[in-house]
């Protein structure tokens, strides 16, 4: 198992989750950020959303660092996750050259240059396996965890337990697992 970005490689990493209200974009960032903190890293999470809680544009920024964090919102991000075409188009310009782009391939048409692109069917998998598109966010979180290798799966699980009602925790664990395995596979392929 060789993640793309190994722990030793980074000092500060900025991740932007984006999509529309109702996809659990902010929750994904919160769960990932909380896991990072549990694993002894510094993390600052901010968000921006419109007045509409569903359907409007939604964005969640996460900065993870070994150092004290001064920036509140990164002008340029290392990792961009887009779960809507709108979000992708708005933020792709903020992705660093050589950065990582993860999109929900059923929702986003994307062929940007000079970035590493990952296309997964997060919402579709979630719908087919668990009957709920919204769990797609956990597929993404699992995928990201495997890809970056900077937070542990255990911390993510604890974080999920803390933030979600008991009755949906199991499904979210499974979605996390599905995403994680996809990410591992992809990492292996990339190494080869």
């Amino acid at each position: 198992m060789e993640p793309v970005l190994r722990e030793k490689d980074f000092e500060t990493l900025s991740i932007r989750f984006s999509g529309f209200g109702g996809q659990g974009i902010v929750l994904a960032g919160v769960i990932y950020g909380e896991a990072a903190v549990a694993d002894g890293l510094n993390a600052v999470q901010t968000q921006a959303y419109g007045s509409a809680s569903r359907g409007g544009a939604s964005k969640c920024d996460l900065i993870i660092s070994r150092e004290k964090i001064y920036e509140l919102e990164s002008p340029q991000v290392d990792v961009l996750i887009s779960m809507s075409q709108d979000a992708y188009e708005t933020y792709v310009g903020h992705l660093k050259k050589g950065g990582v782009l993860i999109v929900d391939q059923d929702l986003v048409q994307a062929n940007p240059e000079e970035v590493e692109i990952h296309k997964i069917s997060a919402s579709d998998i979630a719908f087919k396996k668990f009957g709920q598109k919204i769990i797609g966010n956990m597929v993404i979180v699992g995928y990201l965890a495997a890809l970056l290798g900077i937070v542990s799966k255990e911390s993510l699980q604890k974080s999920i337990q803390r933030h979600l009602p008991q009755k949906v925790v199991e499904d979210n664990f499974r979605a996390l697992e599905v995403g994680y395995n996809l990410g591992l596979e992809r990492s292996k392929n990339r190494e080869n």
Partner: protein
Amino acid sequence: MDREQYNQVIKAIGKRDLFAQGDEAYAYGALLAGCRFFAGYPITPATETAEVMSLLLPRVGGTHIQMEDEIASMGAVIGASLAGVKSMTVTSGPGFSLMQENIGYACMVEAPCVVVDVQRSGPSTGQPTEPSQGDIMQARWGSHGDYEIIALSPNSVQESLNLTIECFNHSERYRNPVLLMTDGEVGHMREGITIPDYGEYEVHEREKPRKPAGEYVPFLPEEGKVPRIADFGCGYHTYLTGLTHKPSGLPATDDAAVHTRLVTRLARKSPKILTSSPELKNSTWTTLRPPSSVTGSPLEQLRMRLRSCVPKVGKSAIFD
């Protein structure tokens, strides 16, 4: 304001030479400026203005309404103004505090209106019948967020009348609420005053949109920085909101550029406003300058007063 309307006002007041209180003069000034709507809630020492308005407005075809509180009063004034009627309210400290949210709303929807604060001794209910000048900074900073305000301050009953007219002119010209920051001393003081003759004073009438209904954009200035108002009911489409809005008036709260453009235009739309009174016009200096640059006898310097609070713009990246 034509001669007939002027005559109507004089007839309602009764005569042109009066021994009147400042509070009464605000009402007379408002009527002479074309104010035809008043909403308010009684409070010492501002009640007399409402009394005069309630008596005289019906005689000149206007409307006086006593509201349930000062929040509603300011709300009614904004509504009436945007329906095309020059409007005002009068209050004192506690009521002025209650009006703060709607003053910000009036700035945001650019509703011309006049708010008279007859300052009494605070904080809180303090000394209801005693005068003070304790709300001066509140006039500038009482509502939340970045905004600019125009505030004038009279020192005699005659000037109370004159400056009220000027408040209305500024409010219509710059499409902004204008404050008359007077105090219980001037408000309750009686002096001999003369109501200016028709043509002796300026009345700025609201400028109607030049563009036809289909092409009108409510918050896009046709020239300069001040958009023209299509009054409610005149057949134009308009949209008003205290939320950040595009020139069309529709909310756009997610766009930083829209907000920055709107709020900086609002902050910069009125130029530095300096008011000089007739007494100063006849002397050696006609505009107000900082005291250090004023020449003249010490007495003249003492008599020189600041009549308007000048919007100050610091050095900054936005105000380049």
